[in-house]
Every structure is written in structure tokens, then in C-alpha cells.
């Protein structure tokens, strides 16, 4: 009979079960509330893209009174140039960027994490410093340079820097990963007469697929989302990316076709969302291990 109070006095700070359950319920309620609040705008935009035009500004609900995919057809051809061109351009730029970034950054990361050479520490420190550099400082000279080369109005200013490992963040990400791969593997290969290139190509890359995939996905998403670069370098509508197309849509239509605008906005998010669905674990681990931006 005196069992319960006894226990309380012995382990004085043990919280009773009902309180634990209460806090659990309250926590879940808070988190579910926050999730709904955060995702509501996204779901609302999705709903708006399917509802009749006249309902977009009168309804805050998530269920359209009637469903229609008209807005997608209107939006797709809503500008002088069709969105198929913009999507193609975005895909070309993003995929080339992925190839460039994965290749160039892994080369640099291999040198920094595995090879011995004079000046390595200094170069590594300089590479880390470029992580903090606001891009505005190099923006204008880069523009002057690319203009001299005749690269304005081509995809080159957006893609070539990726092949030169300009995004130090990914070098850093890969260095962190490469350092975790046992050095004995390289040493064994070196005993067998393998040179640095073979160690990189045959040992490091195959063992590094998680970090290479993470870098590839983030490169794709950030290039896909990039607005500033295309804004500066691409002036012809036939070269526009999806982001520039959307911006033109907001400028040119004013208030006339919000259904089409939302439909294209939704489509522009689809590739990112698919990556999120399929690779969320990889992405979240990538962020957690390095700690990072955006």
C-alpha cells in the first residue's frame, strides 16, 4: 500500500507516468500544428493551380470546388517561348553542373585529403577561406571576363566554373568523407604499384558514392534554383531557365493569369521535390555531418 510514495521518495525526480504522457501529447500537438502551418502555403499553391481561376483569390481552403488542369496548359504556353524550352535549358545547365562539380571537386578533395605535396596546408586554408567569400566581390570582374570571352548569352558562365571546382563547399564535404576511408587501402594499392590516379579512380571514387551522390543532388538543386547567375548572363528568352521564365511570367502577366503562374511554379518545384522524396536520408545526413547552409 505504501509502495508508490516510497518509490517517490527514493527517486525524487522521477516524473510520474501521466505527466510523461501529457508532455508527449502536448509535444506532438505542437509539432503537428507547426507542420500544418509550414506546409499549408505549399499545399495551397498546389490546390490553387488546379482550381478555377475565379476561385484562386476567394478561397483559402485546400480542396478546389472543381478540379481542372487547364492552368497547366495555359501556363506552359503562357509566354512567347514555351516552358518546354525553359525546362530543357534548366536541365542542361543543371546536369552539366553536376558532372563538373562532382569531377572537379572530387579531384581537389582527393589531393587535399590523400596526397602529400608542399604547400598543401596553405592551399587548403585558402580554399576554406573562399567558403566565406561573398560572391559579389568577384561578380563584376567575372562578368567582364566572360563578356570578353564572348560567353554572355551562353550557358558557359554558369557551367564552366563548376568544372573548375569553384564551389569550395563540395570540396570540403568530400574531404571530410575521404578522410574517413582507411588509408591502408591506398597503401596496399600503392604497394601493388598503383599510381595516384588509379587510387583515386579505382579505390576512392567507388567507396565514396554516398558523398558523391549528396554533392550531385545538392548541385542539381542549387543550380536548378539559381536565379542570380541566369539573370545576369542570359538575356535571350530562348536561353532562359525555368526560374527566369517564372520571373518573366510575374512581370508580363501582372495579375491576369495566376492559375498559370502557380501551375508553372508547382512544376518548377517538382524535380526538387522528387529528389527530396527519394534521397531525403542522404540529404539530411549530408547536412548533419558537415553542417551547412540553405
Amino acid at each position, binding site marked *: 500500500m505504501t509502495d508508490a510514495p516510497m518509490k517517490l521518495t527514493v527517486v525524487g*525526480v522521477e516524473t510520474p507516468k501521466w505527466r510523461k504522457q501529457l508532455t508527449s501529447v502536448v*509535444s*506532438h500537438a*505542437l*509539432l503537428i500544428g507547426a*507542420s500544418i502551418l*509550414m*506546409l499549408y*502555403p*505549399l499545399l495551397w*499553391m498546389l490546390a490553387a493551380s488546379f482550381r478555377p481561376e475565379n476561385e484562386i483569390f476567394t478561397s*483559402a481552403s485546400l480542396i478546389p470546388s472543381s478540379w481542372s488542369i487547364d492552368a497547366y496548359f495555359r501556363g506552359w504556353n503562357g509566354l512567347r517561348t514555351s516552358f518546354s524550352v525553359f525546362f530543357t535549358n534548366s536541365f542542361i545547365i543543371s546536369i552539366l553542373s553536376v558532372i563538373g562539380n562532382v569531377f*572537379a571537386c572530387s*579531384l*581537389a578533395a*582527393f*589531393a587535399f585529403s590523400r*596526397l*602529400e*605535396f608542399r604547400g598543401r596546408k596553405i*592551399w587548403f586554408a*585558402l*580554399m576554406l577561406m*573562399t567558403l*566565406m*567569400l*561573398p560572391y*559579389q566581390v*568577384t561578380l*563584376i*570582374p*567575372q562578368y*567582364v571576363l566572360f563578356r570578353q570571352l564572348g560567353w554572355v548569352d551562353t550557358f558557359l558562365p554558369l557551367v564552366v*566554373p563548376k568544372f*573548375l*571546382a*569553384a564551389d569550395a563547399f563540395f*570540396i570540403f564535404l568530400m574531404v571530410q568523407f575521404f578522410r574517413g576511408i582507411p588509408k591502408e587501402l591506398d597503401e596496399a594499392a600503392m604497394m601493388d604499384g598503383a*599510381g595516384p590516379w588509379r587510387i*583515386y579512380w579505382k579505390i576512392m571514387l567507388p567507396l565514396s558514392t554516398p558523398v558523391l551522390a549528396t554533392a550531385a543532388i545538392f548541385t542539381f538543386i542549387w543550380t536548378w*534554383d539559381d*536565379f*542570380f547567375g541566369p539573370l*545576369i548572363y542570359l538575356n535571350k528568352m530562348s536561353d532562359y531557365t525555368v*526560374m527566369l521564365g*517564372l*520571373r518573366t511570367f*510575374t512581370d508580363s502577366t501582372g495579375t491576369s493569369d495566376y492559375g498559370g*503562374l502557380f501551375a508553372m511554379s508547382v512544376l*518548377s*518545384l517538382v524535380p526538387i521535390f522528387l529528389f527530396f522524396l527519394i534521397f*531525403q536520408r542522404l*540529404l*539530411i545526413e549530408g*547536412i*548533419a*555531418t558537415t*553542417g*551547412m547552409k*540553405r
Partner: protein
Amino acid sequence: MSIQNVASAPPSAEVEKVSGWRRIWQQDAPGYLFLLPWFIGFFGLTLGPMIYSFYLSFNHFDLLTAPRWAGLDNYMRMFTNDPKFSASMRVTLFFVVFSVPLKLAFALGVALLLNRGMKGLTIYRSLFYLPSLLGASVAIAILWRQIFAGDGLVNKFLSIFGIVGPSWISNPNYSLWTLIVLSIWQFGSPMIIFLAGLRQIPQDMYEAASLDGASKWRQFWKITLPLLTPVVFFNAIIQTIEAFKSFTPAFIISGGTGNPINSTLFYTLYLYQEAFGFFRMGYASALAWVLLALVALFTAFSFLTSKYWVHYDD
């Protein structure tokens, strides 16, 4: 060279003693060859442009004619005779000072909630992370413009309670706050970093503390927060630099103008206008160097003060 000498030198030392070109080729060349793309990028796209940008900041340059030496004119104009510069500086600092701490507070708060061994942790974590992944997109900025418009989603909800809300994006008192809210909405990625940090804290510290009768509140201030300071520090630096660089949302929401009454004229937006709207490339370069100085000062200040508040276990 005597026979004895050759015999006594171990083969490995022989290789290391090889000097001159052969040594460079064997020891240093692979590293530099692997770094070749990065070197071209570093010198051609980073260091070279930095130097040229510094030079341009002392010039008038319209891209079409050669740069004309201007001495300190650009910097003088900035600090004495440019209301838009001071406006953009105010807007950006306001944005940084409010968005970063609020975003980090949300991130930490939710991470603490999730770290209590909640069921469905991975689902919540993914849901909260999604806005971080989508948030940089033009589509989200467009959505935001609509949500906070006069007839937007926010006012629809307010009208349920009989409140008639203003047009948040075209009212200079609120327009910047819509961007701050957009930034806070993306608290997911610092939250994930906080979660990873929280998991590093050894559980037995809490067990020991609760045996000593320390309340949860006290445990948070005496154990969790001190041990988490390296992560707080990291997140604060990254988020602050990101906030200084923010461009797309302000551009889309204000249609590239920074209006109403310059209330969303981010520093980066002003720099873009000067460089690519008015082709004052020299002035824009000077603006970029002031931004760099600001970011560098902030980073240096953070690192210098970190030893007083960031807890490193030796």
C-alpha cells in the same frame, strides 16, 4: 660514391634523397595535377577577380569605356552622399539581426522537442526540412508575394477573426517582415545540425544531473546549451553570411525595385541595380568590398569572442 655508402643507405632513404626535378615530379606533381582545375578556378575566378574588383572600386567604369581613376570618390559617395546606400545597409542589418536569431531559436526549439525521443522523429524532421530545400526557389518567392498580398492567404485567415489585414508586402512597415518570416520558415537545415549536435551529448550527463536533483530547465542551461555552443556558433556564422547574401526573395517580391520606399532594398539588390541597371561597375565594386569588409569583421569578431562563450572539450 663508395660501395659501402650505397650498401648502407636503405632503399627508402635513397628515394627520398632524390633531389631536384625528379623529386618534384615524384612528390609534388601529383598533388598539383589533381588540383589543376581548382587552381585555374582559384586564380582565374576568385583571386584574380578579387584583385581586379579592388582596383575597380577606385575607378569609374561603365563596362563600355576603359576604367577612369576616381581615387576615393566611390567610397566618399557611399558614406556621405548616397541615401540608397544607407537605406540598403539599414535594411540588410535589420534583416540579419532579426532573421538569424529567430531562425536559430526556432531551429533549436524544434530540435530540442524532437530530441526527446519522439515517435515519428524522421517524419517530422523531413517535413520541417522541406522548406529549406525549396525556399531558395523563385516559385516560393512568388508564393510568398501572394500569401502576404492584400487579398492573400494571411488576410483570409485574419478575416475569420474579423481582422482586416493590410497588404503586407506593399506596406513599408511590414514588407521586410514578410522576408524575415520567409527566412524563419526555412529553419530546417540549422535544425538538422542542432539535432546532430544534441545526439553527441552523452546521456549519462543527464542521468547524473537528475540524480543530483537538477530540474529539466537547469539541465538545459547547465548541460545542453554549453555543450551545444560549438554548433550554435557554427550555425550562427553560416546563417549570418547567408542572410547578408540573400537576394532572390527581395528581388521577386519587390519586382527588382526594393520598394515600397526602399524597405526591401537588400544590399545585394542595390549592388545589382548599380552594376547591371546603371552600369556603375566601379561603384558596385566598392559596394562589394564594403560587404566583404562587413562579413570579414563579423566573422573575425565571432571567432575572437568565441573563446569566451563557445565550449570546446579541449
